[in-house]
């Protein structure tokens, strides 16, 4: 794993959790969306927080796909669970929510899990390496 690859993993954590926090903040202004208030969905799409949140989540998806192009799924998912910890920190400092001791224990479990997986290899070497080798791409 190179520094660039660790940065890609961290960008998944960052873009995912910040995007969710922006959506949560935006939806607090918009209100609940249900069958009787379906037009609230259109109102939500005009909210600046929701728009920024969607851009962050697009960046999250691109980072996620980039990570899966060089690391295993069973490595990427636990490693990016730090996003839950980031969400807790954002909910405390930005959304001013209360975090119970039970949740701090949950944070400790996640950090331990991430530490365990991050120390291992990121990619399974398959005996038939054809599947992992990129096909030649024509210049566009």
């Amino acid at each position, binding site marked *: 794993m190179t520094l660039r690859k660790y940065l890609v993993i961290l960008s998944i954590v960052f873009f995912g959790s910040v995007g969710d926090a922006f959506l949560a903040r935006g939806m607090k202004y918009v209100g609940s969306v249900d069958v009787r208030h379906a037009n609230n969905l259109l109102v939500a799409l005009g909210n600046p927080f929701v728009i920024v949140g969607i851009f962050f989540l697009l960046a999250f998806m691109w980072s996620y796909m980039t990570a899966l192009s060089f690391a295993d799924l*069973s490595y990427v998912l636990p490693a990016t669970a730090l996003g839950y910890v980031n969400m807790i920190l954002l909910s405390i400092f930005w959304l001013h929510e209360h975090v119970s001791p039970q949740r701090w224990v949950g944070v400790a479990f996640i950090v331990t*899990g991430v530490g365990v997986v991050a120390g*291992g290899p990121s990619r399974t070497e398959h005996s038939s390496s054809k599947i992992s080798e990129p096909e030649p791409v024509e210049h566009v």
Partner: protein
Amino acid sequence: MRMLYTWICIFTTVSTAAAGDVFVALAMRRIGDLGDLRRQHGFLAVVMRVLSSGVLFAGVFFMALAFFSNLVGLSWADLSLIGPASAALTFVANALGAKFFLRENVDRRRWFATIFVCCGVLLLTWS
């Protein structure tokens, strides 16, 4: 009966979310390291390669199914049940999918990490 529908929804959400992740992972493995591709062929070639992958779109389709299944589940049961159950079970389902469909080496270290993260997510979200 309502509880049965709720668990059917949770099962559907977990299985479609795992299928989505497995398909996206398979597509990205076939495409190759995006960083290397960008250095060799440029950013536009990377975008073209990603957008021409049918397996990737299958993954996105399953992810969309998981999203709507989750929404339906939330209309029947509380977020405090649907959220933790779906999130934690999806981690386990993904590890199984990675082992049996993607033939990844899910060793003891990765199982430990998956179980730890599962427990952590349950504690975080189960209020």
